[in-house]
């Protein structure tokens, strides 16, 4: 019997996952390319991992691998995010079998209001931010700061 404070989503990757209503993040406009997906929960792989899955509740087959970009770029601060109120995540791309080629998308950060649980994916249309920042490449240069 389900605890009435607990909801379950049957995901394609992780089987059944429990979450609380307070964990739900709402994207009124979905994500870019996925405008019909609005309700998500953020799943941790384990206690220590820097990576999370942004799991869709509308389509259980869809989950985006995300991470906190500050793990790799301490100064990354999209103009649209207020550090105190907002959680910033970026999507992560790992070519199959090549974790050393992992990239994160600095041009399309996901900004979540920690209090209201409303979120959106913003577009940073600037040469300073790349959609494929190679986090492990020694020659990767951090994006230069741009004026707001």
């Amino acid at each position, binding site marked *: 019997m389900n605890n009435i404070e607990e909801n379950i989503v049957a995901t394609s990757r992780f089987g059944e996952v429990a979450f609380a209503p307070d964990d739900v993040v709402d994207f009124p406009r979905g994500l*870019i390319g996925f405008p019909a997906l609005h309700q998500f929960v953020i799943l941790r792989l384990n206690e*220590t991992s820097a990576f999370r899955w942004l799991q869709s509740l509308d389509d259980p087959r869809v989950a985006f691998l995300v991470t906190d970009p500050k793990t790799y770029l301490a100064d990354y601060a999209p103009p649209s995010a207020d550090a105190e109120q907002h959680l910033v995540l970026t999507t992560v791309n790992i070519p199959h079998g*090549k974790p050393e080629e992992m990239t994160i*998308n600095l041009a399309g950060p996901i900004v979540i209001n920690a209090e209201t649980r409303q979120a959106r994916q913003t577009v940073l*249309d600037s040469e300073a931010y790349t959609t494929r920042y190679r986090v492990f490449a020694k020659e990767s240069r951090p994006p230069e700061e741009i004026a707001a």
Partner: protein
Amino acid sequence: MLVLTRKLHQSIVIGDGIEVVVLEVRGEQVRIGIKAPKNVAVHRKEIYDQIQEENRSSTDVRPEDIPE
């Protein structure tokens, strides 16, 4: 697709609050000005497409490839 031909400094109005104007033509490049309400996103299409592609790829990551 609606196709219009404009000369330098001529504009196009879209909906109620969006205006697109040709600011400058230099060789193969066209400088375009866009007036739109703050709540309307305006971006170069390539960026939008790239972000969409990165989103899609991030759904395709194999859990076993994720570093510890």
